[in-house]
């Protein structure tokens, strides 16, 4: 089947803020709706000609079972616009983008907005099993006696809540939480604490410099925040201009408190944010006089063992490079999600070393990522990782920076909790 070209007309994101800070009161749909509205308003596409809105989200709020549809409506799109939500853990936003790509490439759709939103601040505490059972018994009880009997079974530990975010970041299959899987990689590949801290510090320095230079102006759309929504948040909240390697070295390991090397400082923080990209077919580009900034070349998702999920980018990039006949040296920019410093460093080792690559069923050494082209405006360690959004956020950042640098190909990739990797290649059209 012949596939059609898929264009990225534009991409926007919210400023990202560490959970509990500036974006804490913004409910998830509102992290996306205004972006979608802006993307469509800024074109000649009528609001009733958008085929679909696809949004990634992992901590699905009970109030909004289908955030994608809510965002389509809140964005002022026509009520006939189809909308849905996808979940592929850390790559939910990338999954949304990939579905948009496929649907346009195969000719099903012409205009799709895809992205992701995550309010990690608003992830709930949940009643545990015992308390839930007690509520169920209470609701069934008819007489006062039955009610009293149900109540009498209450024990104080029933009130110990399940913290949704903590449970979500623990792999249900291997039982390790994400940080522990990275401790495993650090141990196996002998990645030192100092190497991780240096990497993390560089991320902060690059992000701070990028903000100062106004590098994010084209990709960030300010958002109204505060209890009465009367103030615009313009910049990311997270990058620290006073970050030092020495400072980072003082932090205690978090996931293996006794002998580990992974700290809160060399991992990405829990973050709120959203992102969205407008995708169009060639027909739509012509019909609406669109001026796309990039073309999406292809994508690939790939699984590996859950306890080494941090190597996801290796297998995913391997897959997408094979399919597109591109190699590491073809890329002018790399946007790799810095879930953990150790995990990025491990991926690069595997690109260089055939024997390490082989352990993940990759049968060649691809070479090396040019670190001067990697996350040039900082990565998730500084900017944060709003889980449902990041997969799309990487592509937004990549497209705008490729355009500024007049580069050609760029690749975005990330590791996925549960043992997967995802990668997307785009081609800059503004050269």
């Amino acid at each position: 089947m012949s596939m059609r070209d898929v264009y990225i007309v534009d991409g926007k994101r919210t400023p990202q803020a560490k959970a509990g800070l500036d974006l804490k009161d913004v409910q998830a749909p509102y992290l996306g709706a205004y972006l979608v509205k802006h993307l469509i308003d800024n074109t000649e596409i009528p609001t009733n000609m958008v085929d679909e809105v696809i949004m990634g989200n992992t901590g699905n709020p009970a109030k909004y079972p289908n955030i994608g549809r809510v965002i389509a409506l809140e964005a002022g799109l026509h009520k006939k616009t189809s909308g849905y939500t996808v979940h592929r853990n850390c790559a939910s936003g990338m999954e949304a983008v990939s579905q948009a790509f496929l649907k346009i490439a195969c000719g099903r759709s012409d205009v799709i907005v895809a992205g992701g939103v995550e309010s990690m601040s608003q992830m709930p505490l949940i009643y545990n099993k015992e308390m839930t059972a007690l509520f169920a018994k209470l609701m069934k009880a008819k007489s006062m006696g039955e009610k009293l009997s149900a109540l009498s079974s209450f024990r104080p530990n029933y009130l110990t809540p399940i913290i949704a975010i903590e449970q979500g970041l623990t792999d249900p299959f291997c039982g390790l939480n994400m940080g522990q899987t990275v401790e495993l990689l650090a141990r196996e590949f002998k990645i030192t604490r100092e190497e991780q801290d240096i990497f993390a510090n560089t991320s902060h320095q690059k992000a701070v410099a990028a903000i100062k230079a106004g590098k994010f102006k084209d990709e960030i759309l300010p958002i109204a925040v505060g209890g009465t929504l009367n103030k615009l948040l313009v910049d990311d909240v997270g990058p620290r201009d006073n970050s030092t390697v020495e400072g980072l070295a003082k932090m205690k390991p978090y996931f293996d408190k006794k002998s580990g090397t992974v700290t809160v400082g060399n991992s990405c923080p829990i973050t709120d944010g959203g992102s969205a990209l407008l995708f169009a077919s060639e027909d739509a580009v012509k019909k609406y006089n669109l001026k796309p900034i990039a073309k999406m070349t292809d994508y690939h998702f790939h699984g590996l063992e859950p306890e080494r999920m941090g190597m996801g980018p290796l297998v995913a990039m391997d897959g997408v490079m094979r399919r597109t006949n591109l190699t590491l040296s073809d890329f002018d920019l790399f946007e790799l999600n810095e879930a953990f410093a150790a995990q990025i460093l491990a991926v690069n080792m595997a690109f260089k070393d055939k024997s390490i690559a082989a352990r993940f069923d990759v049968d060649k050494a691809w070479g090396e990522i040019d670190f001067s082209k990697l996350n040039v405006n900082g990565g998730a360690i500084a900017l944060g990782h709003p889980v449902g959004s990041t997969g799309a956020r990487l592509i937004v950042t990549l497209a705008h920076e490729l355009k500024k640098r007049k580069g050609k190909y760029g690749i975005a990739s990330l590791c996925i909790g549960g043992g997967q990797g995802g990668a997307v290649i785009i081609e800059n059209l503004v050269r």
Partner: protein
Amino acid sequence: MANTKISLEYKDNIAYVGFGYNSEKSMTTLDVATMTELLSIVEEIQEKASGLKGVIFHSHKKDCFLAGADINLISSMTTESEAADKAEQGQNVYNKIEDLPIPTVVCVDGVCLGGGLELSLACKTIIASNSPKTTIGLPEVKLGLIPGFGGTYRLPKKIGLPNALDMILTGKTLRADKAKRMGLVAEVYPKENLLAMAQKFFDMKAPHHTLKESVKELATENFVTRKIIFQKVRESVLKKTNGFYQAPLKILDVMDSGMMKGRTSYLASEAQAFGELAISEQSKNLQHIYFMSEAVKKYTGPKGTKPLPELNRGAALGAGTMGGGIAWLMADAGMSPIMKDLTVDALNLGLKQSSQNFAGALKRKKISPDEFERKQRSITAQLDYSGFQKVDLVIEAVVENMDIKKKVFAETEKNVHRECLLTSNTSSLSVEEMSKALEFPGRFAGLHFFNPVHLMPLVEIIVHSKVEPETVEALYKWVLKTKKTPVVVKDGPGFLVNRILMPYLNEAGYLLEEGVSVKDIDQAALNFGMPMGPCRLLDEVGIDVAVKVAKVMYEGLGERAHPSKFSSKLAEKNFLGKKNSKGFYLYDEKGKVTGPNAEVEELLPKDKKKMSETDLQLRLFLPMINEAAAILKDGIVNTAGEIDLGLIFGIGFPPFRGGLLRYADSEGLDKILAALNNFSETVDKERYRPSAYLENLVESKTTFYEKTR
């Protein structure tokens, strides 16, 4: 069936009485024919009562049960006894309904006001639809009237004295759910199910009183507490109305003295009071305003041949107090506006303004927290022109500077589609001149809002020589859609309202220079019924702004608008009014007056001058009347009604006076002219020189209203 206004059907031994039958009008009112027909229907039912299970009242009209008595009928009444008589006839019909020996249920879907609610109260049970169009109330007081069909008698019995007083004295309307909580309505249903549910109430016993209700009743329904309630309410009414309005006081008299009376003698006093109020000048003035504001709802200006542009999306340029207010208005009207300014700090100011307005609505429970979030977020605050290609209406509210505004319009025109209307919220600059900045001036007009946007109902639509009729008509309809009152005016210094306001503010400056105190001047204006005295209003407007506007007026109108020097003196000393917390008065952070500004007092002449209140009022209001005459002469607007409506809705000219020119007409124009002539000799020749237009009116023995009808 011989009925033409009300349907009557019998089905399964139930009588169905349907209003709004055969009616073309969107609202059903109780006119003479309807009342006559209702009487014969009720009498017929009375005869057949023994064979009936009950009566159900309903309406055939969508979204309207009964909108009350026909106001044309009320306004045509000329004598007290005629009006009282009409009220008694209505009371009689309703008494007969009340006395029917069988169950009576009324199904309210849509508007149920005045005589409509009074009819419902005469029935044993009221049920209502949950439609948002269902509004229930007794708004008579707003027209300077008392409900005359037994409303003041029956409502307290239904919902208790305190709630009844609140509804009757404020004229406010209730939604169905609120009416149910108050006990006015027995149950609320979807409108489609209303009729089917009505029979359920035929054999309903009187509702069982809860303990709370019984205690409440005990507390409010005894002689002593009722006296105390009346006293408190009377005090609060006097405070709120400054005693200017007779109707609420009359209502209190009737209800207070009627406490111990039986139905017949109570209703006689209610009808008597209705008669007195209905023909009072005050009520006639309020009815006059009602008719004017109804008339304004139809566009009567020139029509074009092209289809009107659809105004779905909006943009506000400039995010100051006005820009933020305009963005709020557009967001509230569902236009998802863009608000553009040059800096993020400026945008934040605008967001703060719109947020405050929405927060007020949230606090008054007019909107839910979700709606607050959605509406406030529907405003996109931004620094560039992205997204402007989807905008249908731009309202500019940047600084009052012709060059800057022209530049902004030229730039904006490049970023919008061809049908997009471009408007300026200028309060003093020439719209004709501004239109020259545009490639297509036909789509441009002035659109002048008053501060604060969310409270002031008036919008001046200012036309110029190249404006297309489609532009004016589309703007007119849009203003109406946002629930504001449009008035189309020609270009000229200060347009309509500010031009008449100018002498009010300017004369205050001269009076101060003559040695009259701030307090005396403001008090005289307040006692006339103005919402603010001129000094207080100057603080509100901003003294520096007023100085600028005064200069524009002087340049445009000549010596009669020669500005008093006092305001510029204050502005130079940085007394700018409320915005920097010090003007004639001092203000706290919340903008509340804390007291007079002693520093300003020191700038006033040492020799104090005492003037009588009447003289002060003449000094302030005569030049306004004179300027209004000049406006009619210049053809800025064509009718006295437009001027009066503009001043009432634009600056809060006291409604009970019916408007500035209605007041002038009622005082006698010959007297007004004589007073002007007198002041032109004793005070200032130029400022009080009578307008030729006014002289002509006096000469031809006519009035403003007769002349411009």
